[in-house]
């Protein structure tokens, strides 16, 4: 059963509308940038976990690689920052191509291996031996190209692109075939679905989105250390956001990220350790008692969730 593309357009218009008006009415831009980055990350994880079943604990590896890919093309090749954000996305795709063999792993093994891969990417980029290229552990300064307005719209563009891909997955035959692969790859293959192609496309798209978000984030934040763009929280938060909202849908991760990031902004910024505690408990409780996320509540009362 395919769904109408109208629902996808409505979600896109809503997201665009909210962030376009907040740009003019809401003064705390860095909060909005962070929120959009988390929404994009949660959606990127949703594309992979919700539609293919691979849980990328090391998703932050693509975010960090994207941030560095973007920054280095600006610093060394003097590219226009918007082009550099795309380059950041592509550098994450390159990392994704290198890591394609990980797709042979299943379930927990994939999660652990992807975490190790993200740590390895961090160790390489922050290595003092590479200071002449990546500035090693000393951080990157993009102050010279800082442009809050275009930066903001670029980040919104990344978020809309991500949401559009998720909507496409939700309404297209391709998305359906992915879910068939997720549920039973053998049966899907028997029914004529190209398993390898489906997984590869979803994986590389998800990498690309992680990298785009990292690149746009790097440009907007303009000064960062390797440990801040490879922070494990950048994997954990979006995973919780996506699972809390409900994976395999378009609006689930958006709602989850919106609600929980708001909570984080209210309590978490001042007391990160209390927030970490709350998060840990939330992950445990969610998986044990509500594995389908918030949207599963709506499904229970037979409301169709896009």
């Amino acid at each position, binding site marked *: 059963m395919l769904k109408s593309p109208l629902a996808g357009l409505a979600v896109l218009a809503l997201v665009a509308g909210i962030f376009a008006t907040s740009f003019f009415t809401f003064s705390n831009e860095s909060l909005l940038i962070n929120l959009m980055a988390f929404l994009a990350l949660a959606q990127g994880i949703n594309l992979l976990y919700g539609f293919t*079943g691979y*849980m990328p*604990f090391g998703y932050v590896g693509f975010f960090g690689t994207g941030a560095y890919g973007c920054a280095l093309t600006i610093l060394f090749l003097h590219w226009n920052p918007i082009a550099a954000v795309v380059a950041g996305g592509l550098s994450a795709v390159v990392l994704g191509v290198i890591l394609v*063999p*990980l797709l*042979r*792993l*299943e*379930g*927990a*093994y994939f*999660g*652990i*291996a992807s*975490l*190790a*891969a993200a*740590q*390895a990417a961090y*160790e*390489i980029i922050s*290595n*003092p*031996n590479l200071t002449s290229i990546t500035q090693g552990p000393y951080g990157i300064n993009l102050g010279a190209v800082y442009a809050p307005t275009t930066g903001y719209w670029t980040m919104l563009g990344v978020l809309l692109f991500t949401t559009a891909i998720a909507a496409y997955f939700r309404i297209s035959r391709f998305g359906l075939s992915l879910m068939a692969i997720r549920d039973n790859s*053998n049966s899907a293959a028997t029914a004529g679905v190209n398993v390898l192609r489906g997984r590869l496309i979803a994986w590389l798209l998800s990498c690309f989105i992680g990298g785009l978000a990292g690149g746009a984030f790097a440009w907007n934040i303009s000064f960062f250390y390797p440990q801040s763009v490879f922070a*494990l929280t950048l994997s*954990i938060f979006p*995973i919780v956001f996506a*699972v809390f909202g409900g994976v395999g849908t378009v609006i689930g991760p958006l709602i989850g990220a919106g609600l929980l990031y708001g909570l984080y902004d209210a309590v978490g910024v001042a007391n990160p*350790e*209390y*927030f*970490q*505690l709350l*998060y*840990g*408990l*939330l*992950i*445990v409780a969610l*998986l*044990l008692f509500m*594995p389908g996320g918030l949207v599963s509540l709506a499904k229970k009362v037979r409301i169709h969730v896009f």
Partner: protein
Amino acid sequence: MDLLVYALVSGVLYGVFFALVGLGLSLIFGVMRVVNVAHGDVIMWGAFSSFWLYTLWHIGPVLALPIIFVSFFVFGCIIYYGIVPRILQAEDPELASLIVFFGVSQVLEAIATIAFGNTQRSLPDSLLGGRPVHLFGQSFPQSWFWTGLISAAAIVLVYLYLSHTRTGYATRAIMSNRQEAASVGVNVSALSALNFGIGIGLAAIPGCFVSFIAGNISPDIGLNLTVISFAVIVVGSLGKPLGAVLGGLVYGVATALMQTYLPSWAALLPNVLLILIMLARPGGLLGSEVRRA
């Protein structure tokens, strides 16, 4: 040559220690296919328990061992009954356990940060014999030898438990086939709880020595220890928890060689080792035996 000797000796000592680091994880995974990613955080809590036992009551790490093992065993049993049976009912128990224990690891780290702050702490080296040991013309901290010795003793005890007790037989039966073990009358649920407790207790023991091996402890060391533990048990995936011994030795010697010859890239080792071995054995931690369709 001297460097090589130093690297090999310290590598073997590290290796025995890291074998113990991986052992509890391997036992829990082997018995109930639960991926305990909070393993490193349990080690961290073991480390802090040992630190506070000494700081508050002057109980040294060796005396602290039985106290710590028993209390973490009890803690493990509580966690087991609270979480694991529910996970085992999930569609994909391994992935579910991974995510749930990820949450547990966050909780453990957060409580440690709240309780102890983010500062690094360490136990004085003199607690495990202050004077360095001279061997093959090199001098090594005496604490490393004690760490290696006690780790080896703990590993031998686990070996005796698995190979010479009725509970150990039953545990190995569950490891090789859960359903068949249940059908011949093994109390799978109670034994799983017991082994989960033992696994958590075993994780806390190396914690007592982390301060001597790594120099200091802080609440955020858990993740690294988890990754190392996985590297160790994946390398040694021989289908038995004692495969962790081989894994530990390979990992220990490799780490010591890296630290001696390529120190700035040493941190990369566990991650790369883990990925490469996993790709070489895509069937999972225990090799092709448990490969799923």
